[in-house]
Structures are given as structure tokens and as C-alpha cells.
């Protein structure tokens, strides 16, 4: 992987983190997709060697600092999702983008289930159905997000 695509990876992850923690009005906040998870998923599938678990873990840790009730919660959920994506990257990469969106939807559900369980175990249960809304918007935004992230990458990373 070339240095410039490595820079693209880090930059896009940083931007995704900023988008995730950007303060929004409550209504928009509910439908905000988990940008960071989407970015990490994209790089896990398309650059599993450079992206992969380390990026997933540390991005999750940053998310914990910003908004996690317990340190390590998002880190664990994101590591798991990244692991699945890295293992299955060849299968996912070969699929058309609509099917990819469905896979992303499943991955986001897994991510949210892990968060949900940890929230329950650590005594911060949030049972509002609103917490699942972002999995749908995340799947919907996957095709344009993937197009933006792959833009300009003429060579295969």
C-alpha cells in the first residue's frame, strides 16, 4: 500500500470520527449514521492489511473517550465488526454495492447488539428503539460513502 493511500485511510477515518462526534440537533442525531464504523468497514474490506484490526480498535477507543460510558465498549464492538469484515473481505469486495449495503446493515446490527449488551451489563441500559435507527441510515448511506472513499483511487489498493 502506497503512502498516499495510507494517508487517505487515516484522513478519512479522522473525518469520520469528527462527523460522528459533531454536535447535532436531537432529531438529526437519531438518524446520524455511524460514520466511523462505515469508514473502518470500508478500509477493512478494501485494504485489510493496512486497515484492519488496529484501526478498528483505536477508532473504537477514541469513540469511547468521546461518548462511551465505559472505556473499551466501542473498542470491542468495532474490533469484532472489523474482524468479520477482514475475514470476509474477498467475498464482500466481489459483491455489487447493493448487496454490500445489506452486509453493512448486518454488520451495523452486530455492532449495535454488542453495544446494547455491554450497556446492559455495565448498568447503563438504554432500551429506546431509537438506538437502532442508525443501522438503517448507515446501510442507506453506504453506496455514496463507498463511492466517495474510492474516488481518486485509480489503482487497486
Amino acid at each position, binding site marked *: 500500500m502506497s503512502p498516499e493511500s495510507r494517508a487517505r485511510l487515516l484522513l478519512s477515518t479522522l473525518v469520520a470520527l469528527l462527523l460522528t462526534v459533531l454536535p447535532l440537533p436531537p432529531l438529526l442525531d437519531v438518524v446520524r449514521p455511524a460514520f466511523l464504523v462505515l469508514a473502518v468497514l470500508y478500509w477493512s474490506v478494501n485494504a485489510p492489511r493496512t486497515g484492519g*484490526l488496529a484501526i478498528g480498535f483505536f477508532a473504537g477507543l477514541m469513540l469511547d473517550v468521546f461518548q462511551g460510558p465505559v*472505556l473499551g465498549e466501542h473498542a470491542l464492538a468495532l474490533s469484532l465488526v472489523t474482524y468479520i469484515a477482514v475475514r*470476509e473481505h474477498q467475498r464482500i469486495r466481489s459483491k455489487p454495492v447493493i448487496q454490500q449495503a445489506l452486509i453493512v446493515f448486518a454488520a451495523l446490527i452486530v455492532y449495535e447488539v454488542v453495544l446494547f449488551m455491554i450497556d446492559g451489563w455495565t448498568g447503563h441500559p438504554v432500551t429506546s428503539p431509537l438506538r437502532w435507527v442508525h443501522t438503517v441510515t448507515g446501510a442507506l448511506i453506504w453506496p455514496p460513502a463507498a463511492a466517495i472513499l474510492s474516488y481518486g483511487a485509480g489503482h487497486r489498493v
Partner: protein
Amino acid sequence: MAAFGTGAGRPLSGRGGSPGFRFTLYALLSVIAMYLDQRAHYLEQVRYVLQAAAYPLQLAVNSPPAAWRWLQESMQTREALEAENTRLHAHARDLELRAMRYEALARENGELRGLREALPPVADRWLPAEIVNVQLSSLRQRLLLNRGAVNGVFKGQAVLDDKGLIGQTTHVGPWSAEVILITDAEHAVPVLVARTGLRTIAVGAGDTTSLALPYLPGNADIKSGDLLVSSGLGGVFPEGYPVARVTEVHRDAVQPLAQVRAAPLAHVDTDSEVMLVWFRPGHPAAPAPAAETGGDLGHGNPALQPQTTAPKSHAAPQAAPAPPPPPQSEPSQPLPTQATAAIKATPAQPASAAASAAPAPAPPAPASVQAAPGVPATGAALPGQEQP
């Protein structure tokens, strides 16, 4: 999936082992971190460092709204600024008048309590802090402030605005502090109804406009419009600060508990600045240490009895968080003390032993005897000053 996965994982095991191995490692690390953070709070240092690292990012996130605010402020017309200036001047004058009255009331209150000295204000000092980041979802209601351990901020510190209670600090970094709002679903404030002295607990409901009071029996004396003030139990908030106003009371004959909702008085969604407050530890109105609250619930500390303080709590809260009172109280208190200290010696009561044993605030004691005639005098002077 598993059968296919082993094949796909192999070529990736270049450095640091296979993805499966690395995932196990990271998962283990996360679980250990969660355990330490949750159970023993061993990770305060790690959090401190991470919060410091995250602060620039949070500032960057906040920069577009901050730039927009700055632009709006600099675009204001001269007339708007002048109007605002006039309004603020009038407001400051009102507050100063009220603070004068507050001095007299505090002295009178001290006398009524037989303390032989007016108590200094419970708020020792305060620090304005800017809100850097806001999370107001139904899941989390948090603020990030631009003050941290460097400014002396500590975990579990009370945060107020000019209308009432906002919340308390949960995580403190070197330059920033995270505040959990009283409306967060995980937060509960011990309150009392100012009208009746009824104590209960106000729990956040997950949106900025309402608190729930879930522990009131169906026949509790509470009605819409009642003011809720902090009760001083719980060890974080001192007694007597306004928290919320009751908005709706539902009494269902079938339910043993009344369903009560209250609207917080602080305007978190429009504030851009809040106050971090330090309280005088020895003060009777200061928050009771958490360890002792269990015992206090049963009989109650005489200094915390709601009856004596309920009237004061109406007048004090507006004046206390605003900057004017203490600068005035510091220079103004020694004067009556000097004048009255000599006269004071004669009516010394048996209680004087207890009072002289009281620590620092003893010297600036404005004598209760002399204060009594002084109260109507200052009170009468007020309207006179207002007329011209």
C-alpha cells in the same frame, strides 16, 4: 463462514499474527479495560491522558458553530448592542439592589438561627466555563467544558447557570471536563419541594425539557407550579439551589405512586457559558458528604431543616450564582463587625462557646443584635434609592 474464513485469513498473517489471533488480543484488551473502568475505576489516569488527546479534536468539531456565533456577534448593529447594554445595566442595578437586601436577609437569617453571626455565602468561588461540545440525544445528555484539572476542576463538581442547576462533572481531563446533565437518564438529583419541604429525587428523563419524580406517593402534597430546590443530600449540590418547576401531576387511583414531571430551570440548550462552583466545606448548607447521607435521611441535621431555609432559598438562588454578591459581601462585612464587636460582647449567650469554637468565619461576624435594627434600615433605604 468459518470454513471459508480460515482460507481468507491465511495470507493476511504477515505481521502481528493472524486476524483471529489479533482479534482475540484486542477483544481481551477491551474486556480488561471495561472491567477496570467499571469495577474499580483504575483507569482514571488513562482516561485523563485520552481526554487530553481528544480535546483538540473536540475543539475542531466545535469550531464551525463557534465561528458562526462569532460571525453573528460581530455582525450585530450598534443599536442592538446599545439596547443590550442598557438592558444589562438595568439588570446589574437590580441585582445589586437585591444583593444589598440579601446581606440584610442573611444577617437576619443568621440571627433567627441563633448563630450570632451571618454565614458567609455557601458558594466559595466560581469559574465561568465555555461549552465546547454538546450531546443532547435521548441516550446521553452531556456537555464538554473548556476547563479542567489545570483550573482546579474536580470530579463530581456542581455546574450551574444563572437560572439553576445544570449538572455535575463526570470525567475531568487536564483542559476539559465532561458534565452529565440533570436531564440525563442516568442522573438523579435529591430535591425538596420549596413550598412544603417534601424531599424526593428528580431523575432525568432523557430530554432537555423534563425531569421525572418517580418516588412520590399518590397522596403527596405537590402541585403544578411548585419550585423544586436541591436538598443538599447526596454530597454534590448544596441545599437551596433551584432545580426545576413542576409541570404536571398525574394521580391515578390504581397506581400507588403519583406521576410527576418537572421542567428544569436551567437553559442548557441556549447557554454558551456555565458556572463551575466550589462550596465552603464547613458551611451548614454545603452538600453533606456522601458517606453521611445515609444517616441523615433518618433524623436530619437541624441545619438542614427545610422549614427555616425555605424562605431564604427563594431570595438567595438568584443572587448567589451571579458575580455581584461576594465582592460586596467581603468588604461590607468587616465594617459592621468592627462597630458592633464591642457591643456584642455583653449579650453573649451560652451559645457563644459553640460559636467561638466555629472556625474561620468567626471574626467577620456581623453581630445579630446590631443587625436587627439595621435590617429595616437597609430595607427602607432600598425603595428610596430606587425612586430617584
